[in-house]
């Protein structure tokens, strides 16, 4: 590796388009991480983030395409009224797709909660089972809806709008990086304080944390543990649903098989590395998003991208060790305090 390569990498990494791509790539990871965070705070390791995102991504695309078609009716692009109706159709399609995708993910969250809480199924196995069902089920459903197994490009689905932020968009460099993204990007950023508020400042959040820390103690003070777990899983599904919709209705307007490509698990790693705190999780999600974006770029430069692609997982392993040592020390300290 010569100096030439390094300067090439530098040139690619210090561009506004790279900075903007970090925001773009991080969005679904961040949503998944937030979804995992709420479940984990309730003591549930939700391995189904991936499957929930995948299913809601497909549902969003299919529903938006059908609603758009229904609103347009028999109008052809040549018709006079087409222009006026088409805008409305796209808006209705996008809204319906968004809602349907998110609803689908919430229902899956509740289903997982039913399996784990009511039927006492092993949470890891049922989470992984949901992923398998989603992987196959989405391809199956895609084949029924679009007649192909790879992509939904034959469906005319809608995307969420792109937002130009006034004033900021005119600032050089910053404007290019921050403005002009899909609305889901900004929504993801807004969800961070929202999740913080839900988990840390509401009574539901308090109950979720109480159940996560010690379900028996929570139950002894009158908390309905099962209900809280259902609530947490519904919330987890909600954020995964946002993530799924952002994948298929954000920068691209189609669903392709397996399009989550491990983003759910990267989100779960980010949540683990951030130790399920909203701020830590967000920082970790952005770090992983950056590595993901970097791996994409470095692929074009004959640098072994496999190393970059491994960074999130290695970082999580190290994170797991660090937290384990910290908790160990904390418990030891507490024990010493009490033995005095």
């Amino acid at each position: 590796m010569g100096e030439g390569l390094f300067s090439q990498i530098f040139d690619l990494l210090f561009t506004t388009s790279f900075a903007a791509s970090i925001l773009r790539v991080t969005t679904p990871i961040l949503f998944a991480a937030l979804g995992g965070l709420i479940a984990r705070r309730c003591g549930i390791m939700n391995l189904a983030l991936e499957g929930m995102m995948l299913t809601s991504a497909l549902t969003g695309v299919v529903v938006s395409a059908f609603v758009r078609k229904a609103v347009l009716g028999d109008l052809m692009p040549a018709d006079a009224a087409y222009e006026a109706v088409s805008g409305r159709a796209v808006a209705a399609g996008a809204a319906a797709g968004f809602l349907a995708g998110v609803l689908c993910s919430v229902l899956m969250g509740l289903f997982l909660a039913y399996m784990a809480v009511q039927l006492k199924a092993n949470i890891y196995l049922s989470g992984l089972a949901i992923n398998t069902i989603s992987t196959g089920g989405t391809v199956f459903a895609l084949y029924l809806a679009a007649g192909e197994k790879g992509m939904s490009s034959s469906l005319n689905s809608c995307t969420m709008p792109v937002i130009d932020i006034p004033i900021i968009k005119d600032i050089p460099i910053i404007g290019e990086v921050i403005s002009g993204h899909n609305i889901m990007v900004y929504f993801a950023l807004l969800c961070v304080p929202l999740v913080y508020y839900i988990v840390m400042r509401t009574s539901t959040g308090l109950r979720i944390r109480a159940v996560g820390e010690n379900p028996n103690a929570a139950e002894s003070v009158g908390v309905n543990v099962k209900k809280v777990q259902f609530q947490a899983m519904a919330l987890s599904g909600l954020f995964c649903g946002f993530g799924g919709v952002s994948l298929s209705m954000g920068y691209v307007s189609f669903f392709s098989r397996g399009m989550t490509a491990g983003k759910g698990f990267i989100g779960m790693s980010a949540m683990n590395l951030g130790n399920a705190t909203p701020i830590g999780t967000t920082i970790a999600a952005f770090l992983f998003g950056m590595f993901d974006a970097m791996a994409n770029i470095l692929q074009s430069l004959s640098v072994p991208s496999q190393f970059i692609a491994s960074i999130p997982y290695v970082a999580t392993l190290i994170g797991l060790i660090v937290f384990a040592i910290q908790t160990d020390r904390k418990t030891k300290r507490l024990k010493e305090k009490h033995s005095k």
Partner: protein
Amino acid sequence: MTSKQIERRFDAFKTFMAIAIALGIAFIVISFVSESPVEAIATFITGPLQRKSRIGNILEMMTPIMFTGTAICIMYQANQFNMIGEGAFLIAANLTTWFAVTHETWSGLPLQIACLRVGIVTGVVAAFIPAILKVKFKANEVVSSIMMNYILLNVSNYILYYKMRDTVSGQQASYKIPERAKFAKIWTGTRVHTGIFIALAVAVLMYFFIYRTKWGYAIRMVGANANFAKYSGISIVSVAMATQLIGGAIAGLGGSVEMLGMYDRFIWYGTQPGYGFDGIMVGVLAKNNPILVPLAAFFLAYMRIGADVMNRMSDVPIEFVDVVQGLIIMFVAAEMFLSKYKHKLIVNNAKKQLEAKEAAE
């Protein structure tokens, strides 16, 4: 009946019901989707047996699944939910290929044995990391093993791409594995190879290990009640460590066997072959009993081949098998599924015993 007999009978019934319900759901969906549902379902059920080559396909497919399934059984017996099977299988297959293509000059048997040894050692090393993180740092083995699987996938991609890629082959594939390293085919007209005997031997061996040795007893004890095991003087740390390493070794061996038995080149680039998850399904179906692994693996392979035949003969996409697979896992894993029926069984049994006692008096 003793309570153990009831338990066993109920387990079998529950597994049967889970399969029946999952397949029932699938058939209902098929009858809505397909133009000729009866024929589609018929090909699914009888298709795999109609040709010799398809029966061969079943046996070929169940071989790797038996390895990962047995690996899962051993680990889950001690409640170690290590998911490393997938990664261990992949990286072992990868390094086996690398070893074979770089030691072409070796003669047949030593090369094969060395290859299998590479697979076992690789599997142990792969499983060691989540295992040591669990026992030393109490890090959740589920999370860390899934992370490891992604890391190993990248390592495997790297080795394939930079160390053994055959640029002439035109795709992402390794150099050809030398012919003499490969396992012999045992059934003409199919690709069934001697590796299936290794798989069966491992399953039987592990059954004896789990149910007939002191070590196996310790493992089952830790799985049933870790605290009780601890107070009986069983070292939980060494059991946790040992089961995960054995599991890794078996999955790694499976990767080697699959490579030497079925493939000319290493071709898994960018995707995991998925045998790790199939292993979980098999382990769940077999109730973590290695002796039932061949049966469960046969069932899964049969279902896969059936779906494949149906996919080609009718208008139903093969992917519905994944849905069936997921549903079966869920129903079998659900403790409370059919719990009312179990309750009834126990009550009826108790009543009968009481009556018998009264009659005797």
